[in-house]
């Protein structure tokens, strides 16, 4: 007779493991396509819980073990500054971010930079423009400094068609550079720079990228 107790122990452990894996696969949002993940021993201080891509579900992962070198998940954000004067859109791809700050009339700035593993970022643009932000739940909050003015902002997760669009082209000798932020409610804020002169941008059709009244095509922006 062979003892079967030990076998049941092993099978019990296996079943428990499978059950937990199933739970993980069904409830745990796959937040980070992390390349270099943390050790099996987690570090709760640098929690990536406010990962933008993890919609807060009730049993959602709160503080999770952390990555020394995780990559922030890809995301798009679009929103307004707290004073409602301007719009900001941020696109995160592969640990890099590009942001566009635009008041729709004459103040604009393109910023870029790296995104830390916890999703926070510090971006820089021309003329000393800076943007510092960190995800909070499904939002991105932070401050942007453009033309020596500081704006606090909160941007929501943006789903297509909202997001960030740009068109750069030389049309009939005129150099055109347009940036558009399509807000989650469908509003558009944009500036078209024609040979160095800024003007409010005409509307675009986010689906096709065609710019009303211009021989120009706007495309989604990636870093």
């Amino acid at each position, binding site marked *: 007779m062979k003892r079967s107790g030990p076998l049941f122990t092993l099978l019990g452990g296996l079943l428990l*493991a499978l059950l937990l894996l199933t739970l993980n696969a069904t409830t745990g949002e796959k937040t980070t396509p992390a390349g270099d993940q943390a050790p099996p*021993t987690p570090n709760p201080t640098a929690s990536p819980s406010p990962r933008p891509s993890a919609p807060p579900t009730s049993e959602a992962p*709160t503080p*999770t073990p952390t990555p020394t070198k995780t990559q922030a998940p890809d995301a798009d954000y679009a929103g307004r500054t707290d004073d409602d004067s301007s719009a900001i859109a941020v696109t995160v791809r592969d640990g890099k971010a590009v942001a566009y700050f635009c008041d729709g009339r004459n103040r604009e700035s393109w910023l870029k930079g790296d995104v830390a593993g916890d999703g926070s970022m510090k971006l820089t643009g021309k003329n000393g423009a800076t943007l510092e932000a960190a995800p909070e739940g499904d939002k991105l909050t932070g401050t942007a400094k453009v033309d020596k003015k500081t704006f606090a902002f909160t941007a929501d997760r943006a789903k297509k068609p909202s997001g960030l669009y740009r068109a750069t082209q030389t049309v009939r000798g005129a150099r055109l550079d347009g940036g558009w932020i399509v807000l989650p409610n469908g509003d558009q804020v944009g500036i078209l720079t024609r040979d160095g002169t800024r003007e409010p941008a005409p509307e675009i059709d986010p689906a096709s990228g065609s710019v009303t009244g211009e021989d120009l095509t706007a495309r989604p922006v990636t870093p």
Partner: protein
Amino acid sequence: MSVDPNAVTQGFPSPPAHGSPHPARYLVPVFAAGLVAVGLGVYGKAHDPAGTSFNLAGFSSTGAVKSWLGTGAFAFAVVQFVTALAMYGRLPGVRSAPWMPGLHRWSGRIAFLLAVPVAVHCLYALGYQTFDTRVMWHSLLGCFFFGAFTAKMLLLRHERLPGWLLPLVGGAVFAGLAVVWVTSALWFFRTFGVTT
């Protein structure tokens, strides 16, 4: 101990009750152990770490949950170690009692079942990592622990093993878990404080 070589053996077609057992009988446990250890390691390495998984209510972080589960497992493993010593008569002044094998079995089961969720989280969310010494040993011995445990369980099913074999494998399992615990839960408590 005298054995009548001509006694009728029942229920054991082969090998007969004398001499050393055929070494092939160890192949299955050894093979299974290797498969488990390497399989876990390969899964941990190949699988894209999810970075997260569910958390238990009442704990501040998965790290705390895992540290406490691991500490529980290690505590039961100490019970294992002590009862094993007692059963083999190696504990001065303590003799094996009839309840000891039961305690040994059940503390082992509980320790194993406490360790499983921790390992699942490790492998699912973090993966097999080698970026520093502590982490490397933890990953390596974590996989080794489950392999050695599998071997121990499968060996238990055989009778008439050489007397040194179970203590050796059991000792390896215990030592593996001890290092795994030191490189994770103890490190966690020392780094972040004893928190829940």
